[in-house]
């Protein structure tokens, strides 16, 4: 089963290795891992997707917290959230065959970000299934995919999100279970946004 964690970590050398090493030690495969700056100076945000038994979530979160550089861990689980991935896809296309790919891209609300005489590049953002849908359709159409670069999943919980709570409390990693529960009930799902990412596949 896939688990998704959002971890706020200190932005220091070696922290990524420590996190990755933990998963290796637990013999858990990381499916994707994205890292970037968070809203706070000196704090990076990771979204980690991994494949582990359904009951592994607690142990992974608890073990992540044992790393000195980890400030906050959120096991996203079934909580309402927005997940996005960005992909760049380079497709072989001549001026004659381009228009077909343009059409496809439009259906998927993807953008063409580069054109060359023999290829073009598509930028697509969405949930993984949407990206996979586009890739599948390109393949089915006989378009030759030359390169794919994907960021892996990025996740943010809907409504008031965890790191804001942290910030309000100004104590890293001290969030209590009650705070989380309170937040959950305050969340309002946004169907409008959900509709947008639906694309062709569904």
């Amino acid at each position: 089963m896939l688990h998704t964690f959002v971890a706020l970590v200190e932005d220091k050398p070696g922290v990524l290795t420590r996190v990755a090493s933990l998963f290796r030690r637990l013999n858990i495969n990381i499916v994707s891992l994205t890292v970037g700056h968070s809203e706070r100076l000196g704090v990076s945000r990771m979204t980690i997707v991994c494949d582990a038994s359904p009951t592994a979530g607690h142990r992974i979160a608890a073990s992540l917290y044992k790393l000195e550089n980890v400030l906050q861990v959120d096991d996203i689980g079934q909580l309402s959230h927005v997940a996005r991935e960005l992909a760049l896809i380079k497709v072989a296309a001549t001026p004659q065959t381009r228009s077909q790919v343009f059409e496809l891209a439009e259906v998927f609300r993807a953008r063409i970000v580069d054109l060359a005489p023999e290829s073009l590049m598509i930028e697509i953002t969405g949930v993984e299934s949407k990206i996979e849908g586009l890739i599948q359709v390109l393949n089915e159409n006989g378009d030759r995919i030359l390169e794919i670069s994907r960021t892996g999943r990025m996740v943010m919980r809907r409504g008031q999100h965890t790191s804001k709570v942290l910030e309000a409390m100004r104590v890293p990693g001290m969030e209590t279970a009650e705070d989380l529960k309170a937040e959950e009930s305050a969340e309002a799902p946004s169907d409008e946004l959900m509709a947008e990412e639906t694309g062709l596949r569904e």
Partner: protein
Amino acid sequence: MGTAKKGHSHSTQTGGAAKAPATGGTRLTGAEILWATLEGEGVDVVFGYPGGAILPAYDALRKFPIRHVLVRHEQGASHMADGYARASGKVGVAIATSGPGATNLVTGIATAMLDSVPMVCITGQVSSKVLGTDAFQEVDITGITLPLTKHNYLVTRAEEVAPVLRQAFMVARSGRPGPVLVDITKDAQQGSAEFNFVAAEPKPHRPHPMLKTESAATVQAAELIRSAKKPVILAGHGIIQSAAYAQVRTLAERMKIPVASTLLGLGAFPASHPLSLGMMGMHGEAWVNHAIQQSDLLIACGMRFDDRVTGSLATYAPNAKKIHMEVDPAEINKNVKADVALIGDLKEVLEALLPHLAPRADNGESAWLREIEASKGEVAVRDIKNLPDSGHLYAAHVMHDLWRATDGKAIVVTDVGQHQMWEAQYYKHDEPRTLITSGGLGTMGFALPAAIGAKIACPEKEVWVVAGDGGFQMTAAELSTAAQEDLDLKIAVVNNGYLGMVRQWQEFFYEKNYEASPLRSPDFVKLAEAHGIRGVAVHKRSEVLPAVAEARSHKGPFVINFQVEKEDSVYPMIPAGSALHEMIRRPNNPLVETAQDK
């Protein structure tokens, strides 16, 4: 060499700073800051070995009131720091140079990690300017020890030395303790910075956010305990770490619950207490494992359901509910599913729990204790320690006699193998921190250096090494350290001419194919004498007590080579992965006279 500013140039300031590390603002070299910070943290002894990248630190050492014990191999340094920590409860400190010095520490770091022992290891590192160039004796020790430490640090500037070291001590001590490594580049030692011990104080340690016990869980646990008919307390190392002795004892006595111990839990609950069952698990006595298998409630106090105590998880205590009291949230539901988890420092957890428990009025529990007592009887008769002297010397005899001679009061530091299990079975520990052994990693070579650390931590205590002929040879070079430090340390080598535990597995599971387990050893008495240490050899049971008495009355280190039965095995034994009740019992070995034979 030569480019660096010498530590000496600051010696005038140092004196003052060293004596009053808590006062602020003196300019010192990184090397001086290192020692001044250790001094401020209350360190008065370190175990180490010098070399190029740590020489600036060694050069500054003489200005500080810190004892340095020169080991013979850096593995010895990490084991000594470990033994020091286990005996005293304080943080042990080991120090080594870069490259091979640092890698030699690794086994000792892993040993401390697996048994949650607080330790700070300091390594020298090549200059920050050449980091990553495969410079002479450069090794990525923070990379190597990343999965073996609670945390580690690379320090490249003198300014960082004090704050990082202080943080290292805090991390080593906090929550579930463990080893921390601080790698300090040579230029960080040679550079200088303002030293202010107080200002270098780390932010309070972030407690593990999942460290929280709901009061509902406490009530639920109390309810389970009150209604249990066949409860067993599983006493682990956490009791010692948290000093929750009185609380565990109150729980056991108030509710009349028998107590089984893990190997590292021995001593946490007095072995002579009527409610003490003894050691559980692979080499636990039959009645202990029987009680666990029959139990309807296991109350785990600071233990982690290691595979050596559970055997096959599928058949482990099938009818028991489990209350797991544990400081490390990552241990909950790891091996055994807990019905109630009480997460936190054990002493606090128990102090919250005990008010919910009134002493039992009914007599339901004594039926349970009687049942356990009944199951004891039949096996105790055949117990080897009860056997008359038949001329054969068994390790069990040695342990039993050692226990009697020392009144059970010595600190015994064991190595790994059969002798370790015999010690655990036959030396009854009534006091915490009197058994020091490598449980989680099972590191051969641990005993002698760890005992040196323990003796230095507790000079007024009688300290015994109990080692096998195999493991003793792994770190026997530290005899020289014991001699140089003139430690009043007693060393019992249980010499069976084999890597005994390996031989035992080969006997049971590999058709007695004794491949690579017979072992030739030097004459340990002569080896001792070569170190200027007195030694005697013992071949018969009648010689055991006199030899132990001689060792005890001798001032200084003393080695006894106990030449024991070669092919004896530790019984009972639960084969790895089998159920607790599927144990191998002591057979009717013709070599062993039984009480009935007489």
